[in-house]
């Protein structure tokens, strides 16, 4: 081990070995300030987000959008903002939609959001939207609704009634009556839709940032009609909503400033640590203590 690393009182050594708890504290302060004092961060809308917005906006009046929610409160920071922005768009444009989920918590989190937003837009359950509920077998659900919604989903999630009991489902018989499917997810569930959905039905994907890179090849090959990349995607979608009069700003814009502050802290920390390491090595080569 070199001499500089041994000299634990040296400044350069200290800069490379800051107690993680101090870094956590600095991070909390750096994030808390823009959370308490919101500020606007300029943003360039990604073409992938715009593609999703345009595809949803082009939904014909006689078709519905199927929104699948496969996330939980754990990823609310990204999927929550995406869901709200998407719902603002659907409700403002009076597009009817059905909800479903491949996980148990996913069915509840989207229900809470829609119930919170629906009164503002006079969106009535059964007339403008229905909830198909938690679907335990994703493959079989997708293959089932390709042919027949009613045989696949025996009752809705909220009122536990057959689908025929709801006016908006009167014209929805099979997947041909669905303009597009949008999967909001913290995992790679979009694969199931691409694998089994009837050809011709568009699929949109709203992943967390960690899942977004692996979905890009599918957007490039047009298997996905659009992708919302995590929290940035939520901000993109809000911006498109505001620009086109189909919604307003929300979590997406609110979270962008704290996120940027946190990224800046990481970049500064990495720079300080690396500069200290290079200077320490240089001093060691010269025979110094690295302090």
């Amino acid at each position, binding site marked *: 081990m070199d001499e500089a690393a041994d000299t634990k009182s040296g400044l350069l050594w200290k800069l490379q070995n800051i107690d993680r708890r101090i870094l956590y504290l600095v991070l909390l302060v750096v994030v808390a300030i823009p959370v308490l004092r919101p500020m606007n961060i300029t943003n360039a809308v990604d073409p992938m987000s715009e593609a999703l917005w345009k595809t949803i906006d082009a939904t014909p009046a006689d078709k519905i959008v199927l929104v699948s929610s496969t996330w939980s409160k754990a990823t*609310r920071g990204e999927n929550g903002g995406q869901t709200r922005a998407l719902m603002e768009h659907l409700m403002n444009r009076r597009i009817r939609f059905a909800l479903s989920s491949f996980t148990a918590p996913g069915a509840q989190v989207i229900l809470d959001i829609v119930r919170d937003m629906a009164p503002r837009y006079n969106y009535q359950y059964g007339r403008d939207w229905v909830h198909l509920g938690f679907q335990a077998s994703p493959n079989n659900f997708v293959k089932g609704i390709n042919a027949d919604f009613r045989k696949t989903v025996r009752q809705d999630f909220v009122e536990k009634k057959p689908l025929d009991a709801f006016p908006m489902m009167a014209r929805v018989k099979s997947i041909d009556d669905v303009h597009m499917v949008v999967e909001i997810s913290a995992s790679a569930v979009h694969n199931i839709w691409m*694998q*089994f959905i009837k050809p011709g039905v568009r699929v949109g994907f709203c992943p967390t940032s*960690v899942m977004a*890179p692996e979905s890009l090849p599918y957007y490039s090959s047009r298997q996905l009609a659009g992708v919302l*990349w995590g*929290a940035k995607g939520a901000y993109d979608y809000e911006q498109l909503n505001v620009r086109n009069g189909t919604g307003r700003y929300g979590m997406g814009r*609110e979270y962008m400033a704290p996120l940027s502050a946190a990224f800046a802290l990481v970049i500064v920390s990495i720079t300080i640590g690396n500069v200290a390491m290079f200077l320490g090595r240089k001093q060691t080569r010269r025979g110094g203590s690295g302090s």
Partner: protein
Amino acid sequence: MNRQDRIFGIVGLALAVPLAIVGYIVFQKPGSTAFNAFLGGIATLALYSLLYRENPIYRLFEHVYLGLAAGYVSMMAITSVVRPKWYEPVFEKGQWLWLWALPLALLAYFVFSKRHGWLSRIPLVILAGFAAGQAFQAFANLYFPQIRDSFRPVWPTTWRLDNPNPSPDSLSISGALNNILFVVTLISVLAYFLFSFEHKKPVVRSTAQLGRWLIMIGFGAIFGSTIMTRFALLVDRMSFLLVEWLHLRGPT
């Protein structure tokens, strides 16, 4: 559990229990979610105490969370799957043929028996059969379009730097450059994964080396995205604690 842990645990519980009781008295009102938010705030702080050090309060709330999640998922399985998809068709609509599904599914629990463990393989084999049957369709629909998309034109059809109205028939200079970059990346990364022969020839070796570098750049970008997710979750929790829980921010 050492002495410090015991003190940490006792002090934490001594604070958390009266806080929960006071919170219930203050916040619990019909139709209000204030008490839920109050409990959520306590749970968030307890779980974040791990950032300081491992402690019994963190472990207590971790187990509470696991218990809640297991209970919730079990209940959803009963109300959203077993009841509407099996119980009601069999016992309320008289579709008795579906009765066989329950004993077949219950065979899976023989996995806990040394003597009859082989029975648990029967439902597994049936599920594996379903999966195998669907695998070809899944593979074809997922990857064939990918293979088709990997054949891209690299010669521009219009000598403009960028095409404001891109169409399948027109390729600008920047579009052609993107496609060249794509094709070079594809070939070099595939070359890196050619393990059937030794990379002796300079062309193969340098192409594979380039592929390795490009993979590393890709991993770096993916890691950056991972950090973005983690920080977004932190920002959300901070927003929950400071805005929804403590109401430290006024209307914006």
